[in-house]
C-alpha cells in the first residue's frame, strides 16, 4: 500500500487531488468526440452521442445517428436521427434526453431512444433560430435556455410545466456573446453573459453591467466561464490566460490564477466537494488538463485524446474514447489516514489492524498509542468514513476491517454507521459494476437518495437488481419491491412478441397479490399499447372491482364493466356504468341490457321513479310488465291526475293492463274503483258534500250518517258489500247518529248475520245502557256472559257462567273483577269452581 498515494497531487498547501480510472470504455467509438454532439447526465448518468450531426450533406448513408451509452460505454440504444438540425443535447433530472433543434423544438427521448414528446420554445425562437442552448437544473426542475440568432435569450425553468420567458435585450449587442451561463440565485434564474471585456447580468426585467471584484484591469476579454454544480461559484477565463474565481453573486473573490495558455479552453468546470478545503477549476484544452486553485501552483495532466468533462457534486468525471476517469479532491478522512507518515488515529488503527493480521505484537503498540490519546472512537469513525470514499473494494474492505477491529476495543460504539456504510457500499459496488455502469460516489448517492437510485435502475429496466437492492436494504414492500414489480409489468405489457396469455400469466406469476400492486394501472398501460385483450386479462387479477370499472368503460367493454360494478356492491359504480350505457347504446338495446341485470334494473328504476317517470313507463312497456304498468297508472291516478275524468282514464288504462297481466282481482278492484269514483262524483254533486276519495266503507257510512239509507242500500247492493260488514257498518253509523229507533227497526228487518252482541257493544260504547239491554236479551246463550260483561253486570255474568259450568267464562269474569268492589262475585265464582273441581 506504499503506493497508495502515488496518484495524489498536491494543490497548494492544503489539498490533494487524485485522478483514477472508473472504467475503460466498452464502446468502440470510431469517431472523435469532437465530431459528435455529446451530453452526459450528472450522477453517473448515461452518455448521449449524436454522430454525423455537423456534416452538411444529408445523404441517407450519413444521416445523424443518436446513440446512448451507460457511463461505462455499454450501448443502451441507438436511433437514426430523422428530425431537424440539433443544436444541443441535454439530460433532464429524470434522465430523459432533450434534443434541442435549430427551430426551437425540443424533442424528449427516454434513455432507450424512445420518443416521448416534444415542445416548442416559442415563435420568436422559431423565426430567429437557436444559436446556442443550455440545459440546466434548479429546484424547479430541468430548464432550457436558448440564445437565438437575434441575440436574445429565452428560457424555461421547468420543461414539465412549460412557461416561456423572454429575457430583456442586451443594449448594443451586435454579435453573439463570447460566453454565457445560467445562474440560479435565491430561486431566481438569471443569465450571465460576456461580450468582450464586459459582463452583463440579465434578469427577468433588466440588464445590468457587472464587474467581478478584484479583477485586474488588464485581465482582457472573457472567453469562457464556469458555474459550480451548486451555483455558488463562478470562474472566468480571459484571453490573457487569467482565471478569476469567486462567488457567483460577484461579491467575493476567491482567487486568481494565471496560466501560460491563452487559447480558449474547450471546457472549464468547477471541481469542488462539500466542505472543500480548496475550490479548484478544471480547464481542458485539446491535449491538456489543468487544475487550478487559489495557489501559484497548478496540477497538469496530458490528455492523450479528446476528453469530455462532466462536473459532479464532488468532483469531475472525464471520459474519452478509451477511458472514464474521476478527478476529485481527497476528502479529509482519506487524507488523514493515507497521507505519508500520518499519525492520525485512523492511520494508526489501519496499521494496527495490518500488524494484527501479521500476528505481530506491534498491533498492540499502535492500538495503545491510539487508546492513550483516547482517540479510538475517532479512529474507527475515520476508517468508516474513508471506506465510503474508496472505489476499490479491496481498500474499502481493509478500512472496514480496521474499523471493525477497533470497535472490539470500544465499549459503546454505536454500530449503525458501520452497518450502514457496509450496506451502502455493497449497493454502490453493485451499481458501479461495468455492466450496470452507474459510477456514483458515496456523496452523490447520499444526495440522490435510494428512492431515486431505484427509479433510475427501473428506468434502465434493471428490475432484478432493483428488487435485490430493495430486499437487501429491507425497504417496505409498498415503497420497494411492489413498486418495481409494477414498473416491470408495465414494461412487460409492451413486449409485443409475446401472446396475451403468456404476458398475463407471467405478470401474475411474478406479482401474485403483492400488496400495493394495482393491476388496473398495468392494464391501463396495456390498453395504451393497444392490447385490449391483455388489459381485460390483467383486470381479472385486480381484486378491487371498483378499480376495474373505469378502465373497462374506457375500453368500451360496458357489459363487462356492468358485471364488475354489480359484483363490487358499490351502487355508485353501477349507476356510473348504467348512465354510461344509456348514452352509448340506443334506447332499445339499453333496456335489453338492463333486463339481463336485475340489480342494475332496480337501481335504474329507482332513479327513474324520482327523475324520469316516463322512462319508467317505457321500461315496463319494453318488458311487457303489464302488472307494473297497471300499478303505474293506478299510481298516477292518485298522484298526477287531479280531474275525475283524468283519473278515470288512468284507472281504465290500469284495468286494461291488469287484464293483460291476467290479474283479474286487480282489474275487478280497479273497475269497482272507477264505478265508485263516478258514484262519489254524483253524490258529491247532488248532496254537496265531499265524497270523492273516501273508501267504499266510509262512503256508505257517511250516507247512513246523513240518513240517506236508500242510497246506502243501493251501494250495498251495487258493490256486493258482505252482509256482515254492512250490518257492522250500519249499526255503528246509526249509533253515532244516535238513531236508536232506526237501529231497532234494522235489527228486526231480518236475523242479524253478526248476532246481537255487537249491538250491545255499540250501544254501550255510546253509553246507552237502556238500548243495550234490549239487545242483550236477544244474544245467544253462548255470548250471554260477554254481553253482561260489556254491560258491566258482573254479577249476572257470573251467574250465567256458573250456569254454563264453563270455567273459561268464569275466569274471564274473574279477570274483570277488582278486589275492592266485586268481592262477592269473586267469592261466588270461586265457590262454583271448587264445586266443579269436586266433581
Amino acid at each position, binding site marked *: 500500500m506504499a503506493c497508495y498515494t502515488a496518484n495524489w497531487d498536491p494543490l497548494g498547501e492544503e489539498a490533494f487531488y487524485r485522478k483514477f480510472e472508473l472504467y475503460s470504455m466498452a464502446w468502440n467509438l470510431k469517431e472523435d468526440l469532437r465530431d459528435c454532439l455529446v451530453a452526459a447526465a450528472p450522477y453517473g448518468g448515461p452518455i448521449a452521442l449524436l454522430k454525423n450531426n455537423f456534416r452538411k450533406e444529408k445523404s441517407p448513408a450519413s444521416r445523424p445517428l443518436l446513440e446512448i451509452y451507460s457511463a461505462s460505454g455499454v450501448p443502451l440504444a441507438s436511433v437514426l436521427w430523422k428530425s431537424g438540425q440539433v443544436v444541443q443535447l441535454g439530460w433532464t433530472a429524470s434522465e430523459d434526453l432533450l434534443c434541442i433543434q435549430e427551430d426551437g423544438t425540443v424533442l424528449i427521448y427516454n434513455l432507450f431512444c424512445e420518443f416521448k414528446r416534444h415542445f416548442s420554445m416559442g415563435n420568436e425562437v422559431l423565426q430567429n433560430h437557436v444559436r446556442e442552448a443550455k440545459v440546466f437544473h434548479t429546484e424547479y426542475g430541468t430548464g432550457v435556455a436558448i440564445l437565438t440568432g437575434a441575440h436574445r435569450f429565452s428560457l424555461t425553468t421547468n420543461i414539465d410545466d412549460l412557461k416561456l420567458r423572454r429575457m430583456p435585450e442586451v443594449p448594443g449587442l451586435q454579435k453573439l456573446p463570447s460566453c454565457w451561463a445560467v445562474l440560479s440565485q435565491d430561486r431566481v434564474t438569471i443569465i450571465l453573459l460576456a461580450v468582450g471585456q464586459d459582463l452583463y447580468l440579465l434578469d427577468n426585467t433588466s440588464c445590468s453591467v457587472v464587474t467581478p471584484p478584484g479583477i485586474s484591469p488588464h485581465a482582457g476579454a472573457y472567453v469562457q466561464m464556469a458555474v459550480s454544480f451548486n451555483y455558488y461559484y463562478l470562474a472566468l477565463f480571459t484571453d490573457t490566460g487569467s482565471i478569476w474565481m469567486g462567488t457567483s453573486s460577484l461579491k467575493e473573490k476567491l482567487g486568481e490564477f494565471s496560466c501560460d495558455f491563452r487559447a480558449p479552453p474547450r471546457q472549464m468546470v468547477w471541481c469542488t466537494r462539500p466542505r472543500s478545503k480548496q475550490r479548484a477549476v478544471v480547464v481542458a484544452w485539446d491535449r491538456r488538463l489543468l487544475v487550478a486553485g487559489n495557489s501559484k501552483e497548478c496540477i497538469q495532466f496530458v490528455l492523450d485524446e479528446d476528453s469530455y468533462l462532466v462536473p459532479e457534486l464532488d468532483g469531475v468525471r472525464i471520459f474519452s474514447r478509451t477511458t472514464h476517469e474521476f478527478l476529485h479532491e481527497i476528502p479529509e478522512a482519506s487524507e488523514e489516514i493515507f497521507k505519508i507518515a500520518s499519525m492520525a488515529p485512523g492511520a494508526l488503527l489501519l496499521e494496527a489492524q495490518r500488524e494484527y493480521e501479521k500476528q505481530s505484537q506491534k498491533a498492540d503498540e499502535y492500538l495503545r498509542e491510539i487508546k492513550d490519546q483516547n482517540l479510538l472512537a475517532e479512529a474507527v469513525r475515520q476508517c468508516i468514513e474513508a471506506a465510503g470514499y474508496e472505489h476499490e473494494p479491496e481498500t474499502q474492505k481493509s478500512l472496514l476491517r480496521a474499523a471493525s477491529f477497533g470497535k472490539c476495543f470500544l465499549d459503546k460504539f454505536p454500530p449503525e454507521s458501520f452497518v450502514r456504510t457496509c450496506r451502502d457500499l455493497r449497493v454502490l459496488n453493485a451499481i458501479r459494476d461495468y455492466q450496470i455502469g452507474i459510477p456514483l460516489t458515496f456523496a452523490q448517492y447520499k444526495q440522490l437518495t435510494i428512492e431515486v437510485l431505484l427509479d433510475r435502475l427501473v428506468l434502465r429496466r434493471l428490475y432484478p437488481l432493483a428488487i435485490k437492492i430493495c430486499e437487501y436494504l429491507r425497504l417496505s414492500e409498498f415503497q420497494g419491491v411492489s413498486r418495481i414489480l409494477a414498473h416491470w409489468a408495465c414494461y412487460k405489457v409492451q413486449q409485443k412478441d409475446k401472446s396475451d396469455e403468456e404476458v398475463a400469466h407471467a405478470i401474475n406469476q411474478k406479482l401474485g397479490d403483492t*400488496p400495493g400492486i394495482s393491476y388496473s394501472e398495468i392494464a391501463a398501460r396495456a390498453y395504451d399499447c393497444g392490447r385490449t385483450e391483455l388489459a381485460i386479462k390483467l383486470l381479472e387479477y385486480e*381484486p*378491487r372491482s371498483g378499480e376495474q370499472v373505469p378502465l373497462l368503460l374506457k375500453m368500451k367493454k360496458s357489459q363487462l364493466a356492468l358485471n364488475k360494478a354489480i359484483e*363490487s*356492491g*358499490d*351502487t*355508485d359504480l353501477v*349507476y*356510473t356504468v348504467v*348512465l354510461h350505457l344509456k348514452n352509448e347504446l340506443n334506447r332499445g338495446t339499453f333496456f335489453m341490457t338492463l333486463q339481463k341485470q*336485475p*340489480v342494475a334494473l*332496480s*337501481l335504474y*328504476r*329507482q*332513479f327513474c321513479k*324520482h*327523475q324520469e317517470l316516463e322512462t319508467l313507463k317505457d321500461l315496463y312497456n319494453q318488458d311487457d310488465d303489464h*302488472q307494473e304498468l297497471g*300499478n303505474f297508472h*293506478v*299510481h298516477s291516478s*292518485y*298522484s298526477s291526475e287531479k280531474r275525475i275524468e283524468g283519473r278515470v282514464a288512468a284507472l281504465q288504462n290500469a284495468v286494461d293492463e291488469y287484464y293483460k297481466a291476467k290479474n283479474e*282481482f*286487480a282489474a275487478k*278492484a*280497479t273497475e*269497482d*274503483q272507477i264505478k*265508485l269514483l263516478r258514484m262519489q262524483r254524483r253524490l258529491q254533486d247532488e248532496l254537496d258534500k265531499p265524497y270523492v*276519495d*273516501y*273508501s*267504499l*266503507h*266510509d262512503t256508505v257510512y257517511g250516507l247512513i250518517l246523513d240518513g240517506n239509507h236508500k242510497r246506502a242500500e243501493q251501494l250495498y247492493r251495487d*258493490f256486493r*258489500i*258482505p252482509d*256482515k*260488514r254492512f250490518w*257492522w*257498518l250500519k249499526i*255503528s253509523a246509526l249509533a253515532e247518529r244516535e238513531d236508536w229507533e232506526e237501529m231497532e227497526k234494522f235489527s228486526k228487518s231480518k236475523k242479524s248475520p253478526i248476532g246481537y252482541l255487537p249491538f250491545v257493544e255499540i250501544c254501550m260504547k255510546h253509553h246507552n245502557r237502556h238500548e243495550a239491554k234490549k239487545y242483550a236479551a236477544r244474544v245467544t246463550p253462548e255470548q250471554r256472559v260477554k254481553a253482561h260483561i260489556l254491560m258491566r253486570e258482573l254479577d249476572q255474568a257470573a251467574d250465567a257462567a256458573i250456569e254454563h259450568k264453563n270455567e273459561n267464562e268464569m275466569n274471564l269474569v274473574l279477570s274483570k273483577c277488582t278486589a275492592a268492589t266485586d268481592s262477592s262475585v269473586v267469592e261466588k265464582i270461586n265457590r262454583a269452581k271448587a264445586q266443579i273441581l269436586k266433581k
Partner: protein
Amino acid sequence: MAFAGRRDAPDGPDFTVLKRLARDQLIYLLEQLPGKKDLFIEADLMSPLDRIANVSILKQHEVDKLYKVENKPIVSTSDQLCFLVRPRIKNMKYVADIVNADKAMGRSRKYKIIFSPQKFYTCELVLEEEGIYGDVTCDEWAFYLLPLDDDLLSMELPEFFRDYFLEGDQRWISTVARALQLLNSLFGPFANTYGIGRCAKMVYEVWRELVEESEGDSQARRPDISHVFLMDRDVDYVTALCSQVVYEGLVDDTFRIKCGNVDFGPDVTSSDRSFKVLLNAQDKVFSEIRNEHFSNVFGFLSQKARNLQTQYDRRCGMDIKQMKNFVSQELKGLKQEHRLLSLHIGACESIMKKKTKQDFQELLKTEHSLLEGFDIRESTSYIEEHIDRQVSPSESLRLMCLLSVTENGLIPKDYRSLKTQYLQSYGPEHLLTFHNLKRIGLLTEQAPGETLTAMESKVSKLVTDRAAGKLTDAFNSLARKSNFRGISKKLGLIPHVDGEYNLKLPRDMAYVFSGAYVPLSCKIIEQVLERKGWLGLEEVVRLLNGNEFAPTEPLMEENPAWEAQRVILVVFLGGCTFSEISALRFLGKEKGYKFIFLTTAITSSARLMDAMLEAKV
C-alpha cells in the same frame, strides 16, 4: 355447550367516541364554509343531529339560523346556505329550486351540501341535470352510527328496509359495510363473523374488501368486540309482526319512540303539556322496567313508588344536619326519580286504556293461535271482523301479513276476500300496497292445490333425502316462502308449558311474547353462537332459503379470560324491534354474553306496514 353456571356478562365498549367523532367532523365541515351561514336540516336528521351537536355548538361555528328542509320557499337572507341532508333525489331538487330561484333574481350566494352519511352518484347527477353542479360544493358527513343507548347503535335509515327488500336497491349496502368497518377499526378487529341473508352476505363481502384495503393499521390490538352476527330482516318477519308486550316495545307501539325520544302527551303527563323524554339506560326507572313483560310493570312501579315514599319519609326523624345533607344530596335525585316514575305510571295507564279498548287480550289470543297454527278459520274471521270494523288500517294489514307468513300464504279464497274487504274499508289505493306486500313476500297466496301439509312433506322429504345433495326444482318453488311452521317445529319456537308461564321469572326468550313464542331471529342467533356455526342447523337454513355464512376456521381460540369473546355485535339489516332487543338482553344475562345492537333503524310492525304504502301525494 358447557356454560359452567351463569357467567356475568362483560361490559360493552364505550360508544361515546362515535358521537365525538361525528361532532368533530361536522364542526370541521362547518368551518370549511367560514363566516355566518344559515343551516337547512332535513327533518329526518334533526333528532339525530340533536344527539350529536346542540344548537349552541352550531352557533359557535357561525351557524346563524336553523331551518327545516320542507317544501316551501325559503326566507333566508344569509349569503351562505348550508344544507344538511340525506342523499335523496328530492333534496337535490329542493336545493336546485333554491339555487335557480336565486339565479333568476340575480342573487349570488354560496351553497354547500353536506350529505349524511355519504354522497351518492345519483345526487351529483341530478345536480348536474338541474344545471347547478358548479354552483354548490358537496361534502360528506360520515355520521354512520348514532348510539341510542349503551348497547344500541342505530344508522337511522328507516328507508333501508323498503329500498333493499322491496325495491331491490342495494345502495345502502356499502353504507352499512362502512359503518361496520368504522366499528371494526375502533372496537375490533372482529374475529368471527356469522350471518344469514342475501343482504347480510353482501354487506359482509363489501366490508371484507374494506378491511383488506385498510389492512395493516390495527393488527395487534385486542378487540372490544370479537363476534359479529349479521341478519336480514326478511329472515324473520314473524317476530316483527307480533304485538309487543315488553314495556319498551309497548311504549314504541303506542307512542312511537323517535330516535330514543318519546313524546308523552297530556293523557300521560296528566297536565296540559307534553313531555319529551329520553328513554335509555340513564333513566333509572325506565332501565329497570324496559325489558319487563307489561303485566309486571305496574307492580314494579307501585313498589317503586312505595320505596320512594319511604325515602321521602325519612325526613321526619332528621335533625338539621341530616336534613341539610338530605336536601343537598338526595333530594334532587329523589325528585328526578319521582318525576320519571309518575311519567311512566302515566304511560302505563294510557297504554292500558288504549289496549283494553280494542280488546287487546282478544288480539293477542288471535296472534298466539296464528303462531301456534291452531284455529286458523277462527283467526281469519277475527281478522275479517277487524277489517270490517275499520279498527286500524295498519293493524288489519299486520294481522293479514302475520296470517300469510305463518301459513305460507293465504288460501286463494281468503286471499281475495280479505283483500276485497280491506279495499272496501280503507280505500282502493291499497291495491298498490298489496302488490308491494306480495313482492316482498309478506302477503302471498298459496299456490292452488298446495296445502301446507303437502308443502311440509315436500320439505321434510327433501331434508331427509340429503343424498341427492342438490337443490331441486321443488326447492326453487320454495323461494320467498316463509316456511314458518317447519322452522318453528325444528327450533321449538312454541314453548310447551304446563300451566301458566311465569312472566315474573321467565325461563326463556318467549317471555317477550307472553311465553307464547320464542322470537325466531333471536333463536337463530342463540343456536349459532352455541354451535359456533351452522352445523346441525342445515334443515333450518334450507327452510330459511340459505345464504348463511360463518368463519371458515375459528380465528380465535376460546379464552374464557378474554372479555371480548363474549361481546357480540348483532347487526339487523332492515331494522329490529325492541322485543328482539329485550329478548337478546335476556339471553345475554342467562348465558353471560353482552349483545351490542346495530340496526339500520328501530322498527315495529306499524313501521313495516307503513314502509309498504305507496305515498299518496
